[in-house]
C-alpha cells in the first residue's frame, strides 16, 4: 500500500531531478486525500501531491504498492473511495475518463491492433471529427517527430516494443492532452532501448 509518507519521501528527490523551470508555476494536477481499497484491501491511503505545469513527477514504489491505481484515478479509469482530483483548477473527480483531457501511455501501450500506425495516431482527432487534412498534417508531423514515417502503414504487431511505445506517445500527443500519464513506460523494454527512449520522451514532451 502506498501511504502519504512514502510519497512525500520520494517526491523531493524526483522533483529536484526533473523540474526544468525554477519560477513558480500554476498547478497542473492536484490530488488530495486520495484513498482506495479493493475488496476490503486498502491500496491507497490519504495521498496528496501537486504537480506544476511543465513539471515531471515520478512515482516510485514496490510492485502492487498502488502507483498504477493513482494514475488510473487521475485518468478517470477508477473512482477513489475518498479524495479529489483537480486538473488545471477543475475538479474532475466525478468526470468520466473521456472528459478529463488526460493522455495515458499504458504499460502494454494498448495500441489498437486492427488499426495501422497512422490510424492509431489519428484516432483521437478522428473521433473529434477533425477534417481529413488536419488529421493528415498532424499525423505526418507526429510520425516525423517519433521517426516512424516509413512504418506508417504497418500494424502494431509488426513493430518492435520501442516503436510501439513511440506510436503510443504520438497517439497521445496528437490530441494535445493537458496532462500526460505514463504507466511504467519502460517495463517491457530492454535496457538499451529504455535509456534511449527516456531521453527521447523528455525531448518530445518539451
Amino acid at each position: 500500500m502506498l501511504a502519504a509518507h512514502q510519497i512525500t519521501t520520494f517526491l523531493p528527490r524526483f522533483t529536484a531531478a526533473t523540474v526544468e523551470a525554477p519560477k513558480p508555476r500554476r498547478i497542473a494536477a492536484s490530488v488530495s486525500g486520495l484513498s482506495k481499497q479493493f475488496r476490503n484491501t486498502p491500496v491507497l491511503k490519504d495521498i496528496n501531491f501537486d504537480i506544476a505545469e511543465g513539471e515531471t513527477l515520478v512515482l516510485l514504489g514496490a510492485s502492487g504498492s498502488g502507483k498504477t491505481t493513482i494514475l488510473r484515478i487521475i485518468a478517470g479509469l477508477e473512482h477513489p473511495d475518498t479524495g479529489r482530483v483537480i486538473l488545471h483548477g477543475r475538479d474532475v473527480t466525478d468526470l468520466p475518463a473521456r472528459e478529463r483531457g488526460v493522455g495515458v501511455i499504458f504499460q502494454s501501450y494498448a495500441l489498437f491492433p486492427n488499426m495501422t500506425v497512422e490510424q492509431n495516431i489519428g484516432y483521437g482527432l478522428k473521433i473529434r471529427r477533425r477534417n481529413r487534412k488536419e488529421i493528415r498534417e498532424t499525423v505526418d508531423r507526429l510520425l516525423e517527430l517519433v521517426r516512424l514515417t516509413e512504418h506508417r502503414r504497418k500494424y502494431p504487431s509488426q513493430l518492435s516494443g520501442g516503436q510501439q511505445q513511440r506510436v503510443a506517445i504520438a497517439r497521445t500527443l496528437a490530441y494535445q492532452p493537458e496532462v500526460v500519464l505514463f504507466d511504467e513506460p519502460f517495463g517491457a523494454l530492454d535496457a538499451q532501448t529504455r535509456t534511449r527512449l527516456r531521453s527521447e520522451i523528455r525531448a518530445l514532451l518539451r
Partner: protein
Amino acid sequence: MSAAVSTIRHVQGFDVVRPLSIGTLIVLMLPLVFLPLASIFIFGTGKGLPRFWSALTAPEAIFALKLSIATSFWATVFNVLFGLFAAYVLSRYSFWGRNALIVTISLPTAIPTAVAGFALLLLWGPYGTLGRLLAPRGIQIMFTGGAIILANIFVTFPLAFGVMKAVFDTMNHSLEEASATIGATRWQTFWHVTLPSLRGAIVTGALLTFARAVGEFGSTILVSGNLAGRTQTAPLYIFAKFNEGQIEAANAIAIVLALLSFLIFSVLFFVRDRMEAK
C-alpha cells in the same frame, strides 16, 4: 543412455504408431461419417442426373429449400445481434443472477429439440399462455414461418453468444480504456475498438447458427405443422418424402443440405485460419 536410444529411433524413423493411428482414425470414421455421406451422393445420382435434377427442381422442393434458407437467415441475424448484446452485458457487468442468466442462455444446447418445440407450442400455440391472448386478435404465430424462426432462434441461441462471449472475456480491456482516455464516447469505443476485435467471432457465430438452423428438425416439425408448400422446411421435406417412399426426392434435397453444410464449414475453417494468422 536411454535418451540417446530414443533419439536414434526417432531420427532413423519408422514410427509404427503414426500409420496405425491414422489408419484407425480413417477406419473408424468410414462407417460413421464417410460412408453415410457418400451414400447420399451415390443413391441421389444413381438413376442419372436428369432424374436428380427434376427431383431437385420440384416446386415443393424449391419452396422447402427457400423457406429453410430464409428462416435460418432471420434466426441468424437475430441471434448474432442478440448474442453480441448478451455477450457484452454478461461479460462486462457483474451483477446478482449473472451466472443464472449465462446458464439459461446456454441451456438450449442441452435441451432436446423436440422439447424446445413443445415448449414453444405451450407458450405461443392457440391454447398457449401467450397464444391464447393473441388468438382473439387474429394473430397466430404457430404453424407459420414465424414459428420456424422462433424455433431456430431458441435452438441456436447459445451458438453465437458462446463464441462472442469467449472473445469478450479474453479481450484486452486496456484497449477500451485507452480509447476512453483519448476522448471516445462509449459508442465510438465500441464501434472503432471493440467491434473490430469481434469480427472473427461474429462470422464464426453466424455461420454456426445458420448451419445449425438450416438442419433443424425436432423443434420445427412441432411448431411448423409440416404443411407442404407452406411451412415445410428442407429437413421436413426429406422426412415427408422418405415416409411417402419417394427416396429420390428426399435424396436430392439431402445432397443440397450436405453440400451447404460442407460449404459453410469450409468458409468457417478459412475464416478461422485467417483470423489466427492475424
